[in-house]
């Protein structure tokens, strides 16, 4: 049995030394997607990271200069970790810019995250650009996202090369 995967593919690219860009199409109007990214009761239901984690804190003060705070807890009673940040720019249904770092910062300063929403024909393309101060910090952030050990196949490799 072959699982063809989700309908829309997530693209992750490293367009410059300091950035990570993720692009994903979602089958919903920007109004709903924007809500899912900004309303705590909705954020809690999808922004969970690896399986086996849930959100114990999800505070959002959605205004320029307002703060947000997310804390994830491992369901088996393991340690918690959190991310907090400040909103820098909010263009409803179109664009959010915020700075963020871990509660126990493992890099200096903040990562600047721009989330852009573009609706077309009832679907919304989300583009998240994460800009770090240095390449080392960016690479560390990617490293920290490595939870699952996956063996890369040539197929997958080709796909990533084509995405480039």
């Amino acid at each position, binding site marked *: 049995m072959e699982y063809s995967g*989700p309908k*829309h593919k997530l693209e*992750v690219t490293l367009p410059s030394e300091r950035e990570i860009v993720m692009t994903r199409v979602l089958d919903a109007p920007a109004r709903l997607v924007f809500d*899912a990214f900004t309303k705590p009761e909705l954020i809690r239901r*999808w922004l969970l990271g*690896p399986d086996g984690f849930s959100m114990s804190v999800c505070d959002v003060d959605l205004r320029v200069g307002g703060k947000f705070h997310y804390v994830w807890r491992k369901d088996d009673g393991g340690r918690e970790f959190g991310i907090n940040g400040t909103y820098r720019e909010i263009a409803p249904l179109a664009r959010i810019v915020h700075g963020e770092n871990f509660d126990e910062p493992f890099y200096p300063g903040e990562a600047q995250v721009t989330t852009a929403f573009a609706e077309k024909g009832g679907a919304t393309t989300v583009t998240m650009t994460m800009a770090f101060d240095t390449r080392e910090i960016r690479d560390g952030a990617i490293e920290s996202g490595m939870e699952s050990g996956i063996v890369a196949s*040539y197929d997958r490799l080709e796909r*990533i090369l084509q995405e*480039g």
Partner: protein
Amino acid sequence: MEPIGYELGSGHLDATFMALADPTRRAILGRLARGEASVAELAAPFGMSQPAISKHLKVLERAGLVHQGRDAQRRPRRIEARPLEEATKWLEGYRKLWETNFQRLDALLGELQTDATHRRRTKRRKK
């Protein structure tokens, strides 16, 4: 997403990603993934001069991504799988993490839209 130590893989991971940062070099690797090719064969589809292609190949060779084949005449280039597998695995873990989130978001958005349709219908019936 959990910071599991902040240790950079190694210098060669850096070299791999530097080499991969260029679209022409990624395209060259994409071509070599389908089979070995000489500099002339690589240059043709890109509309680039052979010296320009050679320059890109040097960067890829320094990163250990491409090796020169044995044929002294043609000097075909071959793709070297291991460093690429390491680099792919590295980024793939990150991608996987976010794909899981986005799949949950797909489900949530589907649910929200069904709810909205349902509410509209119920409202209409009540009128």
